[in-house]
């Protein structure tokens, strides 16, 4: 198992290097001169001499490989350059805004798992009866609902009409309820659907039939013979959901005025502040990739078939 984890950890390095190279190449291939963009943000008229000077300051006159290597060696030391707009080191801003985003996305992930698992179990247990119909109808609407729109509906209902919850901002737990609901709605629906299908599939497996033949009760069969196996696809799906939840959080932050990295990134994208965009993207990719690594490890640990194979392979 330790070998498996180590190998997966080492695999992170080429992936992240690849991502950073890809980003660098896209950045340099893009239309428009970064030097001109830089001057625009600094409100300096882009005269030929100013552009040449900016190219030199930004290091754009050097070969692209040299640019990448120096960017990388700075990045490894935590230096992602200076925002063209605020003139502050990008990393400071990112680290300032990131915790709020992670808090919201993390709460949404927790909420997704806590709610979707019982829903899925319930739906599978009462297959084709009303609880199942209800969960499926909910899941069906859930996968089609635009999250930012749902955010407004929640504000209309809980803040404007019922006056139960604050419509904006970050503060106590009351501030988190609506953003978490809006962010997790779709993942929740997908998960409930997935668990239901996975449970029904497992229920027709031979080991379940055998457990029933041994005279075990419905609930015990469900708990120890169906659910444990059926949860495996949910573990895999959770890795994917992390991406959706992070992405959803970026959008939802703007609805609820949540002071996270989403709003910061949107304004950077709007003003084409390249160092910020680059750093923000790399951070989110890293979080996503690391979460998926954790999911893989968890999966291998839960499923002895994979764990033992991995050990045999070493």
């Amino acid at each position, binding site marked *: 198992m330790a070998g498996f984890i180590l190998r997966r950890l080492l695999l992170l390095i*080429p*992936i992240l290097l*690849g*991502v950073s*190279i*890809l*980003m660098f190449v*896209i*950045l340099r291939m*893009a*239309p*428009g001169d970064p030097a001109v963009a830089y001057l625009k943000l600094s409100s300096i008229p882009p005269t030929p001499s100013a552009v040449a000077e900016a190219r030199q300051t930004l290091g754009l006159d050097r070969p692209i490989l040299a640019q990448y290597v120096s960017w990388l060696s700075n990045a490894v030391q935590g230096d992602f350059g200076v925002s063209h707009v605020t003139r502050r080191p990008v990393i400071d801003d990112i680290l300032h805004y990131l915790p709020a985003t992670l808090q919201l996305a993390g709460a949404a992930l927790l909420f997704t798992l806590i709610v979707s698992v019982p829903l899925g179990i319930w739906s599978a247990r009462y297959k084709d009866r009303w609880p199942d*119909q209800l969960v*499926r*109808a909910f899941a*069906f*609407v859930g*996968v*089609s*609902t*635009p*999250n*930012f*729109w749902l955010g*407004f*509906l929640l*504000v*209309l209902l809980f803040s*404007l009409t019922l006056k139960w919850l604050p419509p904006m901002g970050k503060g106590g737990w009351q501030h988190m309820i609506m953003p978490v609901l809006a962010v997790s709605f779709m993942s929740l629906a*997908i998960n409930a*659907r*997935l668990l239901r*299908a996975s449970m*029904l599939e497992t229920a*027709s497996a031979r080991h379940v039939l055998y457990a029933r033949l041994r005279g075990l009760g419905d609930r015990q069969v469900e708990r120890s013979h169906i659910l444990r196996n059926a949860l495996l*696809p949910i573990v895999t*799906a959770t890795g*994917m959901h*992390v*991406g*959706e939840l*992070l*992405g*959803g959080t*970026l*959008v939802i932050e*703007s609805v609820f005025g949540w002071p996270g990295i989403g709003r910061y*990134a*949107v304004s*950077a*994208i*709007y003003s*084409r502040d*390249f160092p910020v*965009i680059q750093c923000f*993207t790399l951070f*989110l*990719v890293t979080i*996503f*990739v690391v979460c998926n690594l954790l999911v893989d490890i968890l999966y291998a640990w839960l499923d002895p078939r994979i764990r033992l194979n991995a050990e045999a392979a070493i």
Partner: protein
Amino acid sequence: MSVASLDARASRRRMWRLPIRDSWAVRIALFIVALLAIAAIAAPWIAPYDPDAVDLARRLQSPSLSHWLGTDHLGRDELSRLIYGTRVSLGSVALSIVLILALAIAVGGLSGYMGGRIDQAIMRFCDCFLAFPTIVLALFLIGILGTGMVNVIIAIALSHFAWYARMVRGLVLSFRQRDFVLASRAAGASRVRVFFEHLFPAIMAQMIVLATLDIGHMMLHVAGLSFLGLGVQPPTAEWGVMIGDARPFVWSMPMLILWPGLALLLSVMAFNILGDAVRDRLDPSLHGDHQH
């Protein structure tokens, strides 16, 4: 095969269907999609007003006989804007899908066909794309390219194509050794001809299933980006833009947010139902939730 086991198979296949009986759910979905298509194509003839005509004297009006869904903060007719919005939503997603399929078949096909080092290199290249959450990659690309509809289409296409390319490669690999392909090669058909005559139709069928399942998801992406002000730009009538425009009036005119959201919800639902139905019909082997 006994009648009982046939029944069991049928019920297992029904398991994924919707809560409503599938035939009429699919029919309603088809009806909605047809309506959307008509609205998109015939917008100039159906829409009662010019979607961009500002009339400040008639701003923020409630629904009336002359403005069925009311007017927005610039006095523009809400219904006309909704109808024109269909064009942008469907059009941008359709173009994205065309771009994705072209990229995926080129990249995935090359990878599967060449094999060896080229295949490895292309797959590692795709892995880099797959390491991004789709919306984060889309945001990055828009940050580089700038906002606007064309750039959104490019961003959506580039943030999705790697999934499809990987699928195309897998299909090419699985078909390459099949008898009908080998027979065709043995009979002297060139690789290119084998590709277009035998592999391409089979790959396309699968790609269409995947793409149909993704339409709703992509519509949400386009609307979400436009809502943030990073996608289609105002004053263009687009559903996400309309929701963004209506934000300051969420207290006074919540309907301005409800209509475009409802249009989006219904369209995404219709395409999701259709996606499930197409999957069941064309490819019963692809089950489970397809998602990114």
